Each structure stands twice: as C-alpha cells, then as structure tokens.
C-alpha cells in the first residue's frame, strides 16, 4: 500500500511546490525583463518581487484573507461549505467599529472590549448559520449563501451605507508599528494560525472535523454527535471571520458594508488550492496558509511583472477548478450535481 510517489503524497506536496515555483518564476520574469533592457549584472537579490518590502506587502494583504480562510478550512474539512463569510466579516467589522467608538474610541479605554465583542458576534452568526444548516436540514452551501446575504444586508442596515472610521493610533499600530519590517498584524495572524493549528491537531473538536469529513455515517455509528460538531464548526468559522473583520479594519482603518466583499471567493480558492479536498477529510490549516500565499503571490507578482490586476480573478477561477479536479478521486464519486 505504501509507495514513494503515491497520489496521496503528490497531492500533499503539490501546493508547496506550486508556491515555490511561483516564488521563483516572478523574479525570473523580472530578470529576463531587465536583461532584455540591456542590464548587465543581474542578481536575484535585486528582485523587486523578493524584496523585504514587497514580501511585507504580500503578508499584509494576505492577513485578513488568511483569517477568513482558516475558518472555512474547518467547514470544508467536514465536507460542507460556508459561503457566508462576506456578510459575517462586514457585520463583525461594522459592529466592532461602532462598539469601539461608543466605548471610548481608543484601546487605552474600555473600548478594547469591542475586540472580544466582534469575535462573539462572529460566533453568534456562525451559530445561527449552523443551526439553520443542521436543524432545518438545508445543504450548507445554500444555507450559508443565504446567511451571507442576510449578513451583508444587516451590515448595510447598521451603516446605512456610511463608512465608519477607526482612527485610534493604538489600534492602527497593528499596521503602523513594525518589528523586523513586518507590521504587528502579521504576527497576530501568525499567532492566530498557531492557535487554529493547535485546535486542529490537539483538540477533540479539531479531530472530530476529520472524522466527520472522512466518514460521516461511520463517525455517527461510533457514537459521535455529528450535528454538534457541525454547529461548533460553523461557530469556530464565525470567530475566524470575526478575526478577519478586525484585521480588515486594522489594515485600512475603515469599517463599511463592503469590508467583506471578495472574501468569499478568495478564501475558498485559497483553501482548495492549498490542498484541502472539497469532499472533506483531507488537508488542514497549514495547507490553507500555503493556499493563501499562493493566491496573494500570484496577485502581487502579476502587478510586479506588469500584468493588469483584473486577470487575477480569471486565474484564480481556473486554479480552483484545476485544484478540485486534481483532488477528486473519480472512482469514488457516482455523480455530481
């Protein structure tokens, strides 16, 4: 049963190889461009793409999406899907901003309470999402899509279309203060990733996600309360979306209805491209990190080598399909709707 280059091992490492390939291909593009222009000495270190400044830029832009993608990772691990992130991110971001301003407007006051509040709001939306999906027995893609619409609508209701500015320098330190060239928010994201990794590998809940994704009926027959695991999964995802909302506000200092826009596609792309199978049971948060990096390296690299940014969504769209096709074991699927 064990082989060196089995399908499983190949799939496991493919995303990393793709990332490494991308990290090399963009500098090479740059170098050939430079060479074409007649530059004589070409060093890899001259690459604008590989400069610390640019890498920090990639890290910053990837941070909110990573938070969101971590959340949806757990859902996809269970073989479900969550399309509610755009609404949830917007609601948590707007909710946070209003609470933050109302409680004093600076982290040095009671306004810090707005942070756990935002995560709570995320968990609450996830709870509703999970209950609608599990108790009303509605397929998750539809339940969560509808919840996403409700969320965006609710955010719009809260703001009335206005932008809410969060200008507290202490909070904005997330972006403005840098350690070793990277802003604090990157370290916060790294810490959160570690926490999620811990949940995935060390806790009962985390392992139960794999059991549900690997064989829901078998897991239920072994006495696992699958419905509870599902609802908890959606709550955990909601908390991650809350983190995503906080990071998005931290990044631009504004909370509005469209704060959550585009997160749906980017996060699902990242998860699937990272190697977490849409059918559940395989993959995890580290895959998602790789996936998010792939998405944002492509995004950034295309700009660096001078390609228009609008191609990005087409590239990602095709990438998703390729990733799903590669991770599908066709013998095990009878038909697909």
């Amino acid at each position, binding site marked *: 049963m064990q082989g060196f280059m089995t399908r499983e091992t190949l799939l496991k490492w493919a995303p990393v190889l793709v990332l490494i390939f991308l990290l090399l291909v963009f500098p090479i593009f740059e170098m050939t461009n430079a060479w074409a222009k007649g530059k004589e000495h070409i060093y890899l270190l001259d690459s604008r793409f590989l400069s610390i400044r640019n890498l920090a830029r990639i890290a910053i832009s990837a941070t909110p999406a990573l938070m969101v993608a971590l959340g949806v990772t757990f859902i996809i691990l269970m073989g479900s899907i969550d399309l509610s992130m755009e609404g949830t991110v917007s609601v948590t971001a707007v909710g946070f901003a209003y609470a933050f301003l109302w409680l004093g407007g600076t982290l040095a006051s009671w306004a810090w309470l707005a942070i756990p509040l935002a995560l709570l709001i995320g968990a609450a939306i996830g709870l509703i999402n999970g209950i609608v999906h599990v108790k009303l027995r509605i397929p998750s893609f539809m339940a969560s899509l509808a919840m996403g619409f409700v969320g965006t609508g609710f955010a719009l209701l809260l703001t009335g279309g206005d932008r809410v500015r969060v200008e507290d320098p202490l909070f904005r330190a997330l972006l403005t203060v840098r350690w070793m060239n990277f802003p604090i928010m990157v370290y916060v994201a790294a810490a959160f990733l570690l926490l999620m990794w811990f949940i995935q590998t060390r*806790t009962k809940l985390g392992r139960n996600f794999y059991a549900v994704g690997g064989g829901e009926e078998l*897991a239920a027959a072994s006495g696992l309360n699958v419905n509870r695991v599902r609802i908890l999964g959606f709550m955990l995802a909601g908390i991650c979306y809350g983190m995503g909302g906080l990071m998005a506000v931290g990044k631009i200092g504004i909370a509005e209805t469209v704060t959550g826009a585009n997160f749906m596609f980017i996060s699902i792309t990242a998860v699937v491209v990272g190697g977490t199978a849409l059918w559940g049971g395989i993959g995890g948060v580290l895959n998602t990190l790789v996936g998010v990096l792939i998405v944002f390296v492509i995004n950034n690299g295309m700009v660096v080598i001078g390609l228009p940014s609008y191609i990005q969504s087409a590239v990602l769209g095709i990438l998703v399909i390729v990733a799903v096709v590669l991770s599908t074991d066709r013998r095990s699927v009878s038909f697909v709707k």
Partner: protein
Amino acid sequence: MYELINVDKRFPGVHALKAVDFKVNRGEIVGLVGENGAGKSTLMKVIYGSYQPDGGDITIDGTKVRFQNPRQAMDHGIGMVFQEQSLITNLTVMENIFLGFEQQFVSFGVINWRKMADAARAQLAKVKLDIDPSTKTSQLSFAQRQLVELAKVLTLEERIDGDLVILLDEPTSVLASEEVELLFQIVRDLTSRASFIFVSHRMEEVLELSDRIYVMKDGEVVDVVEHDKADKESIQHKMVGREVDKEYYREQKQKPYDGDRVLLSVDGLGFAGRFADVSFDLHAGEVLCLVGTEGSGREAILRTVFGIDRPDTGSVTVKDQKITRFSAQNGVTMGIGYLPRERKVEGIVAGMNVYENMTLSQMGNYASAGILRIGEERALAEDQVARLSIKTPDIFKDCGGLSGGNQQKVVLAKWRSGGSEILLMDHPTRGLDIGAKEDVYDMIREMSDEGVGIILVADTLEEAIGLSHNIIVLKDGEVQKRFTGAPGSKPSLYDLVHHMI
C-alpha cells in the same frame, strides 16, 4: 452466558426470525451459516442492537436485557466487526480505535496524544499487530485494517465489566488465505478474552474455526452442530432441503428456447475485484440465471453487460455486434433492458408519472424533431396498464406512489414496449407480495414465448431453479458450475448450494 430465547422478528410481509434460540458460552466460537435470506443478517442485527425483537428474550448470564441501539449493546459487551470496512481512512489508527470514546484522553478539550497512543498500543498488542498507532489508516493493508477493527471492538474489555461477545461478519472476504490463517490464530487466542460469533459464506472456514455451528433456513435455526460432528455435506443439505412448488414458478409454461438464435454472447468478461473470465451465450427465449452469494459478482456482471460498468477484459457481443462503447445509453440502443435491484432509485423516477416513466428509455419513438407526441405516450400507457393489469388510478399518477409490484410492472412495460429483446433482471421480485411475484413470473414466461432473452439474478434459489433454462453458479467472481434446467430435470437446491459456498 449470552442467550437468545424464542426470539421473533417480523417485517411487513416477512417473518424474518421464527422463535430462534441461540446461545454463546464463554470463550466459545460459534459459527452461523445459511443461504441468502435465511435470516442471518436479521439475527446479527438483533444481537448487536440494531433491531429490537418483537418477541422472546435476550439474556446475559440469566439477566434479561433489551438494547435500543448498538451503543447500548456495546455497553453490555456486544461488539461488531463489520463486513464493510468501517474505519475512517483519513484518521490515524488510534483515533479510529477510540472514535467516539476519546473523552478519557481529553482534558479541557485537548487530547493527550501520548496517552492515547499508549492505550492504542495495548489494544493492538491484543491482536498482535505491531504498527505505530499514529499511522494513517489509509496506509494499512486490508488485513491490517481488519485487525484494527478487531482491536477497536476489544476496547470494550476495558470499558465494561462483563464478558465480551464479538460478531465477525464475513471477516475473510477481502483477505488472502495466509491472512485468513493469521486472523483465525488471533481469534483462537482471543477466546480467553471474548466469545465470537463467526458469520461467513465460506463453509470450510466456518467448519475450521467454530466450536458449534448454527444452521439457519427461512428464519429458523434448523440445526446446531458440534465441531467434531460437523460435516459440510450434511450442513448444506440442512440449509436447503425443501420441495420446490412447480406450479408457483410456472414450470408448466416453460418451453425450450431457440438454440440457434444467439442474442448475446459474453466472452472472457472480467472486472478487477468483482468477477473474472465469465463467458456465456444467451439465446432467444432463454432464461439464464446467475446464482451465487452476495458479492459473488452476479449483479456486477449484469451491470457490465448493460454498460453501466466498464469491463477490464473480455467482450460482449449483442446480435453479432461487438460492443465497443460501454454505456447505459449504448446498451439501450442495442436493445438491452435492465431491471435494477434498487427499483425506487434506478428503476422508476419517483416524481414522474406512469406514462412519462414508460417512455423514458424510448422518447425518440414518441417524438418528432424533439417534440413529444404526448397523446401517443398516453395511449401506450393506457394500453400497458390494461395489459399488465397495473393498479393505478390513472396514468397521471406519480410512480413513486405506486406499490412495489406495480412499479416493477411499469419498468417492465418500459423495456418491453421499447422493443428490448434482452432483459437483465436484478432481483425482480424483491420486496413484492406473493400475488405480485406470481405476476412477474407470468410475465417472464410470456416474454420467453415472445423470444426475449432474460438474464436473471433471482431473489431466492428456488426462484432461480424454477424459472431458469440454464444456471451459472458463481463464487467469489468466478464461474463454478453450469446447470441446465429443463422442467423435470432441474438441479436441486443442494446441487447449487454445494458450489456456492
């Protein structure tokens, strides 16, 4: 120690268990044999708590117990090793062993992996499996997985106080012979810890392993044989031994088939893991039965001939035309019809009415330039409903709401009116009441008279014998023996069972 007394179980239309007495002593290995439909699986489900008996008692050490679900049975020491692999392959071995019972290793939601690994190692030692408990299950061989399943069941030893009874359901079906030997050795060693109930269609294995063998037939225990006195032939006689009612299967209507007209010819057909090197010819007016136990490859052969599955080797020739493209669509074009076992899923479309179902495979005959001639469809349906006496208020009734027998008639009408000359029938009488069964038998005879060739996988052996001109006995995907069955010289049940198991 563990005992069933006078246990009864009924399903609508079926008396599945009739006053069954069953006993397992401490440290004993009890064999359970019987042909398909004899009640083995119902009995097993009663034992491990998936079914609740309608009458009789279950006792453990003389105390009456009643299980509402498998979990409660587990709490009383009844464990089950399933025939189908029931491990979750993307989890590690230890996670599978303790799935649903992780709580003992968890504090504040965090799992202590080291503690779980140690505990898992202790379980694996019981089945003499020396693997790292953190191996992913997908990387194990089937034999290893079987042992892990056994180890998983053996965790009951620590969890409960009383004795263990472990059911082994066809545990050897995916194993090679030396692996079977290993498994048996381990099971024998484990009798110091638990009692076993061993269910298999491989008679030799049951004889070798069991201390006592229960023989079931028609929901009854017909004999209990001690290991020393067990003899394959006599057990097989007891499993069958029943007179076939000739009238019932319309034997008087059976006519010789046309040996000159070959409708379908199968040559060296093989499908990895299902069946290998199967060859036969089907003639006009012939009923050919494929006989074997569950998983012997009968159904898979039908599906391959129809085109739903693609063979790895061999060829299928329909009316002198070799099939190159295997698809259901092509099968239908070649004039093959298929009555699937899963009537409600593959046979009829629930949600479509009677006439829509009847023309589903032949819409082209009732349409011009893609536009349906619905009037003609309805006329066809009215005609078929009258001819096959299909009981439906009208032809606009949703087929999902018809009774099983009438659904089956609709499916038959679909293929017959479409002109299929070859019919593949998978359990055509499954779940039908007696009247509906007789209707199906009549229809089979009528179709034979009209020159239709039929390949049948029958619901019971009697049915196979009663209906067929020719019988092919299969075991583990290979052809064992062929019988001819002209009225008056039909093979006996024993003849077939002898080659089946």
